[in-house]
């Protein structure tokens, strides 16, 4: 898919210009919606033309059954609320809903999503999503949060692809050089204190979808494929990175050392290792060899500690291309950004991607990852495809009532009209068989393992023996060499002594001759005696040395023989070990293949069991509904019978009073009364049955709801983020309109419109004005947004998707001034409009549309009307405030559905 490290990103077609016609149409819509976008010219073409659009791929996968229950399409009110929240971070306004409902174009949902993507709120919202995903609401430390957010916003406005964004945050160092990115970009690293373990953990989680934290100190105890060496392979990229802040009063920067490796020791096994830089389960990357003299391009300067050292080769930068071009990176991004819209990943939790937590649908995740790469990591375009797919547009609601479909018999053309118990039974049988196959495969695996383990042990034992034998060879060789040296020395000593003897013999002979020749020279006789003595000593020494040489030579021969024996023994054991390894290897291959089979059968069993569970739930739901209907009908029949009998009895009794002695009449009456009593019993029984059937139907419905809620391909009920909640409340109550009007007034006072020659408004002025007003409005919202974040966000540094509801949040709604204030009438807000609405039904309709984005039901109109009319007219504002408060705090408002 990806051919080179950053190949796809160099495509010139990345920023195509918006078609003129579309631009005009979109401009018209956005002016209606109050804000033209700032980056119209940069909006990319929606999809690449080569392969079918991603949404079609998703749809055909759904049709092929990756999700077992193709659900109903949601209604327009649901779609506009859902997509407005997902693309703009706030609920739609009443007028937007009206226009959308009135739109009769068949592709109006496409138009709606495009309008939302062009809306300035989209930039704001996407930047917020990225901020929360990347920083997880960590507190501000070395980089101002505002600078980081501004930088992100700029990147979103420029449609910077996700892979490039990640490269930029990982390479930012916080320096103020002209060619460096703004300091804000460095917040990801600096506010993690540039701490190598924190960077490793968050890189693995956020960019690769693997929470390797437990593998820092040992192989993950429960996840088979999270290994300590993987953690440290990734750590190796960061291990030289550090926070550079020589002066605590001045800003900190990211810096890197030129040397340093990631070494580790398992706290469980005490096995130590040193990891080369590599992606998890990947090969170590090639690194340039840098001569010690060239390690630094800016060397550390002891005299000037404020000099930030820069190595020639940056380990951290070596991560960038391998990371963003890896398949894991694409899969993680696809999964995370799918989860951002659907409320749950195809791998869920998104941080725990490993073999025991496989994707719910491999093919779908693959298609999404491929699609994201084809879309060149353009997040808006990727979201657009998801939003236009059936998965996103599925209704989070029950399929058509089984009471209806129960009446439709299964036919060949329509086998799914009512999933039969037989189908469910077949699915169950398939699942049972698959589970059995899984068990068999697991048994085979453990048997193979049982064979392999002793073989492996034997091989290891032989290894140890071979190693001992090899050591013995070395020792024998050392001894033999020492003996050889000693023998050679002894031979040399003997040779020297042997050479001495003829010299002494000659000297003795000559001296004796001299003594006989030269008479009367006693010193010569003495000398001759001395030489003779010396010669005798030399002969003696020679004899000793000859003995030594002989024994040393014998020793040498013995050691040489021993060496040969040891060498032979070692070779034999090594051969044995190699043979044992071959046997063990074969057994291992059998084990590995059995393990692979076990894995496959396990996945298959899991899928079939899931399908069977769904089929059974669905069948049970239908059966229960049928039984409920049948029981109700039996009860009805019984009641009719009883009523008929009662009325007949009554007329007969009347007749009996006129004809008291008619025996036949009396007999009929008695029989009738017996029947009546039987009919009453039948009613009792039927009533009990109907109640039981009804409660069984309720339970079955609830199972269906939870089965739906667990389906990964259906948008989950997701809580609004703190920011979505805040902006939606402001939008719904009309407070946002007020803030906008106020911003417009403020801006216009300072910036009067310039007169133009053509008398028309100056387009530049309009664009500038719109942007400025939007920015001003955002500034006014910010303090409220911060308050909502304080109350509704998860703890810093932890995943922000986990839902929680605490009483302090509810207390804020109950008693803090702001929310109550927004429900009080003031100039131009919703409460003011409602107070002046006289007709309760109209009031209710306006209120429900603005807050819940749907029309009220008849029951709700009745309830609201009762509330309005039961209180004195003077309390109208209070009633309106109560109604608004109740709707704002309802679960329906709090969640995206």
């Amino acid at each position: 898919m990806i051919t080179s490290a950053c190949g796809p990103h160099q495509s010139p077609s990345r920023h195509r210009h918006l078609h003129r016609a579309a631009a005009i149409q979109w401009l018209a819509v956005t002016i209606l919606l109050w804000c033209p976008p700032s980056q119209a010219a940069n909006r990319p073409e929606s999809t690449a033309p080569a392969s079918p659009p991603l949404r079609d791929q998703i749809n055909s996968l759904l049709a092929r059954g990756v999700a077992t229950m193709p659900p109903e399409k949601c209604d327009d009110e649901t779609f506009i609320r859902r997509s407005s929240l997902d693309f703009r971070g706030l609920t739609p306004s009443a007028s937007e809903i009206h226009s959308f409902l009135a739109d009769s174009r068949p592709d109006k949902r496409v138009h709606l999503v495009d309008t939302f993507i062009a809306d300035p709120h989209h930039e704001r919202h996407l930047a917020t999503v990225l901020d929360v995903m990347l920083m997880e609401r960590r507190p501000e430390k070395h980089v101002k949060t505002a600078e980081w957010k501004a930088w992100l916003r700029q990147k979103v406005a420029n449609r910077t692809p996700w892979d490039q964004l990640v490269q930029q945050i990982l390479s930012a160092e916080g320096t103020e050089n002209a060619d460096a990115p703004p300091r804000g970009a460095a917040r990801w690293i600096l506010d993690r204190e540039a701490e190598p373990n924190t960077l490793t953990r968050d890189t693995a989680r956020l960019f690769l979808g693997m929470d390797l934290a437990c593998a820092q100190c040992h192989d993950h105890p429960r996840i088979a494929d999270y290994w300590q060496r993987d953690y440290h392979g990734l750590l190796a990229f960061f291990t030289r990175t550090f926070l550079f802040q020589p002066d605590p009063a001045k800003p900190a920067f990211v810096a890197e050392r030129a040397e340093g490796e990631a070494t580790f020791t398992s706290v469980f096994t005490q096995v130590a290792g040193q990891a080369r830089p590599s992606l998890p389960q990947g090969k170590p990357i090639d690194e340039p060899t840098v001569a010690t003299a060239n390690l630094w391009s800016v060397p550390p300067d002891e005299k000037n500690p404020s000099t930030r050292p820069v190595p020639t080769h940056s380990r951290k930068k070596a991560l960038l291309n391998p990371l963003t071009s890896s398949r894991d990176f694409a899969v993680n991004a696809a999964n995370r950004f799918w989860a951002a819209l659907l409320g749950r990943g195809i791998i869920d939790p998104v941080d725990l991607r490993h073999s025991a937590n496989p994707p719910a649908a491999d093919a779908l995740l693959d298609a999404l990852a491929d699609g994201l790469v084809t879309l060149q990591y353009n997040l808006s375009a990727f979201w657009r495809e998801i939003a236009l797919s059936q998965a996103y547009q599925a209704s989070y609601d029950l399929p058509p009532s089984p009471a209806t479909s129960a009446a439709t018999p299964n036919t060949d053309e329509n086998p799914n009209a009512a999933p039969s118990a037989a189908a469910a039974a077949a699915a169950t049988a398939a699942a049972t068989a698959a589970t059995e196959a899984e068990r068999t495969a697991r048994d085979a695996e453990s048997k193979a393992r049982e064979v392999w383990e002793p073989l492996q042990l034997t091989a290891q034992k032989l290894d140890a023996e071979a190693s001992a034998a090899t050591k013995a060879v070395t020792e024998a060789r050392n001894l033999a060499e020492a003996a050889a040296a000693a023998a050679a020395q002894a031979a040399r000593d003997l040779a020297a002594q042997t050479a001495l003897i003829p010299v002494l013999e000659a000297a003795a002979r000559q001296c004796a001759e001299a003594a006989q020749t030269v008479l009367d020279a006693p010193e010569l006789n003495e000398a001759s005696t001395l030489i003779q003595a010396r010669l005798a000593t030399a002969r003696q020494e020679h004899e000793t040395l000859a003995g030594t040489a002989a024994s040393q030579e014998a020793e040498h021969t013995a050691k040489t023989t021993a060496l040969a024996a040891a060498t032979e023994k070692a070779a034999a054991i090594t051969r044995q070990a190699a043979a044992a390894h071959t046997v063990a290897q074969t057994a291992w291959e059998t084990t590995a293949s059995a393990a692979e089979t076990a894995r496959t059968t396990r996945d298959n069993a899991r899928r079939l069991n899931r399908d069977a569970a769904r089929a059974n739930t669905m069948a049970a739901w239908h059966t229960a509904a049928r039984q409920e209907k049948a029981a109700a009908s039996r009860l009805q029949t019984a009641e009719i019978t009883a009523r008929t009998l009662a009325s007949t009895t009554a007329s007969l009794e009347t007749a009996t009073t006129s004809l008291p002695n008619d025996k036949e009449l009396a007999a009929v009456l008695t029989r009738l009364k017996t029947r009546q009593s039987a009919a009453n019993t039948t009613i009792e029984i039927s009533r009990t049955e109907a109640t039981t059937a009804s409660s069984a139907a309720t339970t079955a419905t609830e199972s269906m709801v939870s089965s739906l809620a667990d389906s990964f391909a259906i948008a989950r009920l997701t809580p609004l983020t703190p920011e979505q909640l805040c902006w939606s409340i402001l939008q719904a109550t009309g407070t946002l309109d007020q803030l906008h009007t106020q911003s417009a007034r403020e801006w216009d006072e300072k910036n009067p419109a310039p007169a133009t020659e053509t008398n028309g408004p100056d387009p530049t002025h309009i664009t500038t004005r719109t942007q400025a007003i939007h920015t001003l409005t955002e500034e006014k919202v910010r303090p409220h947004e911060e308050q909502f974040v304080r109350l509704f966000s998860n703890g810093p540094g932890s995943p922000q998707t986990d839902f929680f509801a605490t009483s302090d949040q509810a207390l804020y709604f109950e008693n803090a001034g702001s929310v109550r204030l927004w429900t009080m009438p003031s100039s131009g807000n919703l409460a003011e409009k409602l107070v002046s609405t006289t007709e309760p039904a109209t009031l209710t309709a306006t209120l429900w549309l603005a807050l819940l984005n749907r029309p009220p039901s008849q029951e709700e109109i009745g309830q609201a009307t009762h509330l309005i009319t039961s209180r004195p007219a003077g309390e109208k504002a209070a009633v309106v405030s109560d109604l608004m408060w109740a709707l704002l705090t309802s679960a329906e408002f709090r969640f995206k559905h």
Partner: protein
Amino acid sequence: MSSLLHACHSADHLIGRRQFFGAMTRAGAGAAIAGLGSFASPAMAEALAKQQKRMLVIRLAGGVSQLETWDPKPRTTTGGPFRAIPTSVPGIHLSELLPQTAKQMHRLSLIRSINTHEDDHGKGHHLMLTGRVQTPGQAWPELGAVVAKALDSPDRSLPGHIVITPGGGGGRNADSAYLGPKYASLVLGNGQPPQYTERPASLAENASVCANDLRRSLDQRFALRRRTAETEAYTQSFEQARELMARRSAFDVTQEPAADHERYGSHDFGRHCLLARRLIEQGVTFVQVTHSNYDTHNEYFNFHFEQVGEFDRPFATLIDDLAQRGLLDHTLVVVLSEFGRTPHINHLYGRDHWSKAWSIALAGAGIQPGAVIGKTNNLGTEVIEREVDGGHLFHTYLAALGVKSTSNFTIAGQKLPLADPAFEPIHELLM
């Protein structure tokens, strides 16, 4: 009847709520939302409530000296100017700065052999309150969050994890890590009741009742076809909030008798201890009180004389009260710090940070009273018997509360050990 009270014809709000829950339960919502005072009789409720396990931590912030409190070494070169005094347990001596506490010694236990290897305030605090060494890139929940979650029950209407701080402020702390904000501490700044529990004067209770009735009926309609654990939790949070408002007085220490205020002392710490008693009595699972300013590197003995002096009476009174009221058997009380102080007295006549050989005190639930674990040498410079680390202490607290300290929480499919698996409880200290 109640229609006279509320223009919207709501029933009394409490009844309304119960009916609401009743409806939810009938619809098969599950048992998790039962409770909220649904005991059969008040007497039974009281009996059950008393047996509920609780924990009270008194944190002496800054590092309290073991030599001037739990492990005195009088008449030695390191012992300092204070004497040791006998206590209610023969053979155990405390510093003379703790005369009232000494009288409670038969209810207390001491661990005199702590070596935590962390001389930094932040890291020491982390180790003592999470039972684990601080590791970069890892966030662990604090003791209060772990205890509040481990002992959580659906009957609780008050928050399970409360921290009384000496200063102001309020809201919710970020101290529960992966256990989630539900178990994060609710802060009572200087002992004030929680934020937003007071209804603004401008708002009629009547209005609120009607609005809540409408909210409930909307939620019921929504739940008919789209019920999840999350919508339930959200809907419930409003009921909890109303319960909390109704029980706001639980946090109001001024409602305690004047005589008790007198006994605990008029200073902040005394008042906070009295509030802690009140909260423990009302069934709050975990309460932490902080007494600060122990980090005295110079003029140390004057400061410790004042601080420990201020600590002594309210603490002893609290232990006595809890015992008298039958609560001590079910409430674990721990007095801890981030570390102790050096036996060596520095040139400023002070003691510095010291984690090598120091002490804590415990009492109540599951702890052997009157026990002393471990020993330091004559000068207090080294542990010579039964050395323990922060991990052992964390296990011990949980075990004393009847929680299996080697068990796991399952969070998002991951099994996470309650306490550091490298340690275990101090078994001989447990009953």
